[in-house]
């Protein structure tokens, strides 16, 4: 019912192409997250699925039905906006029931749906309140509830957690995920926060510069990034990228790893480095203890490198530090194209 298919979708503003040849298939019941830096086109793509932006090329299907020319209300979708877009002059119950009122749903049925959604989201005590009398988390839930009562085939979320503080964001992440799993509704979710994407998604679609860089499960993207962009975007702190030519660093130091001849970029995640007797020797430039781990910023033959160490180390800026790693954790990318080199 709620599968979403995009075939050759493009978006142009005048002569500027902001999305090109987007091909994507989101399975029914799947929680798919569009992630990427600001301006990559993820929100535009979501709005095109919603029908709030016109499509310049290609086809969008929802539940097997081509929806290119359908009005947003006819696409069987519900959307949660970044600002929540709650009607400030309506109570929580009226906000949740507005779509049903527009659809002239029977009053008893409307009330039943609002009650059911409110109970599921813990909003029952707040049904008579206005949005301004609610906390950020409660408003977020009302926006969810408004989407739920419509019983749509697809939920669309446009950065719904970006207005919440860090603690509430973690809580709401889990609530949204649980609610979606309970309802089993296909969900397309946009965020620029890769942690949000990693923790919530069944599949992540990484976008950059108006095109899809890679689609995969969170661990796929983490373990086997298709290119440098995905490798650096997924994971925090970002993956270290070290330029290597014929197995040697720019200063001639040989690296203890198996690398093909020629120029490559070696990727190594900060959390895969550990203090050890053998490995690479770096010059420490900064130390940031966070309690759970210690972040070391350093240089390796003039190239910046970060290590996230679980073990507590006593080093200071200016010290030399030898960091070991498992060669299985290395990623190799073509120095020119940035594409992954299979090993």
């Amino acid at each position, binding site marked *: 019912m709620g599968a979403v298919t995009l075939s050759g979708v493009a978006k142009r503003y005048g002569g500027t192409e902001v999305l090109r040849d987007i091909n994507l298939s989101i399975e029914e019941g799947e929680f798919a997250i569009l992630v990427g830096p600001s301006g990559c086109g993820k929100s535009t793509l979501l709005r095109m699925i919603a029908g*709030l932006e016109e499509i310049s090329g290609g086809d969008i299907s929802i539940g097997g039905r081509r929806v290119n020319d359908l009005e*947003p*209300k006819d696409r069987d979708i519900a*959307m949660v906006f970044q*600002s929540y*877009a709650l*009607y400030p*002059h309506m109570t929580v119950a009226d906000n949740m029931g507005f*779509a049903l009122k*527009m659809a002239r749903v029977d009053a008893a049925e409307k009330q039943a749906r609002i009650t059911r959604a409110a109970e599921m989201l813990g909003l029952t005590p707040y049904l008579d309140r206005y949005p301004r009398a609610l906390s950020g988390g409660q408003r977020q839930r009302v926006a969810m509830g408004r989407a739920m009562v419509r019983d749509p085939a697809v939920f669309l979320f446009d950065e719904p957690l970006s207005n919440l503080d860090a603690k509430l964001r973690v809580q709401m992440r889990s609530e949204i995920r649980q609610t979606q799993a309970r309802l089993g509704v296909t969900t397309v979710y946009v965020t620029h926060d890769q942690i949000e994407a990693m923790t919530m998604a069944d599949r992540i679609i990484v976008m950059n510069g108006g095109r899809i860089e890679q689609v995969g499960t969170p661990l796929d993207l983490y373990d086997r990034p298709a290119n440098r962009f995905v490798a650096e975007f997924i994971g925090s702190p970002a993956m270290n990228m070290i330029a290597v030519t014929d197995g040697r660093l720019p200063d001639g130091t040989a690296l203890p790893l198996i690398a093909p001849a020629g120029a490559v970029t070696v990727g190594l995640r900060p959390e895969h480095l550990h203090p050890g007797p053998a490995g690479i020797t770096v010059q420490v430039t900064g130390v940031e203890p966070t309690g759970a781990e210690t972040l070391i910023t350093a240089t390796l033959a003039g190239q910046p490198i970060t290590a996230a160490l679980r073990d507590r180390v006593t080093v200071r800026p200016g010290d030399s530090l030898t960091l070991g790693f498992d060669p299985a954790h290395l990623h190799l990318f073509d120095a020119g194209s940035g594409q992954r080199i299979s090993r």
Partner: protein
Amino acid sequence: MAAISQSRRTGSAVYWLYLMPGLIGFVLVVGLPFAMNVAISFTKWRGIGMPSFVGLANYDRLLGDAAFWSSMQHTLFFVVAMAVIPTILSLILAATLFDYVATQFGQGWSSFFRAGYYLPQILPVSAAGVLWSWILNPHGVLNLVLRGLGLEGSNWLGDPSYAIYAVMGVMVWIQIGYSLVVFMSGLGRVDPSLYEAARLDGAGAPQRFWYITIPMLRPEIAVIALTTTIAALKVFAPVFVLTNGGPDNSTIVPSYFSYTHFFATVRVGYGAAISTAQTAITILLGLMFLRLQTRKGDAR
């Protein structure tokens, strides 16, 4: 304690210092003339010589003066022409320019129309009056167009049956730009995602207007309704320029009525009584309106 008290006194003195320029202006330009007007309304005075005290005689005469009540009745027509119709029309126009013209044809066209509607507001009333006198006179453009369509024209400003409606039409034309600009700036602060959410919720353009635009513009509507109603209660210049209150007093309004008594018949005391009554009614309506608005705001 003494130090705190001293500091409060100093603070209070500073507030008064800041208020002084405005207060002096208010007393000189509004307070004092109004007090003098009230005082004169209890006198019989020809504008020169000493006024003679007549108590409430002017007010007694006012209550029985059919011309005064007729002018008050015309005021209601002007409330419709200056407050009710322009507010409704400009709400619809603002929503159309904002929700349709700007999105379909671009912001430039929306701004162009907004400026066009606002143009009558920057025209001097005298120029607008001359312009509309040309349009509405028996050999004017309107009659030419009507005759071209096979209809019969009329002496729009000279016929007592039509004059008030003709002046009302001009007032709608003048007033619409003011409320349109205020409503459009009000719409500019409304989160666009509310309209998108409403579209997703199945609301068409009329429903978005009714359920989103009007409630979101409630503060602006209140301000416009109050200011235009007050303007209608004291309207003078357009009537002076277009009809001089005629024909047969069919467009006379309290301001013009008091003006004729002040300067034409030189019954200054009676003119002052008309002005005082008009001011009292305006203040009363204004206060009632504000109170109603405050209550509505509190209830929400």
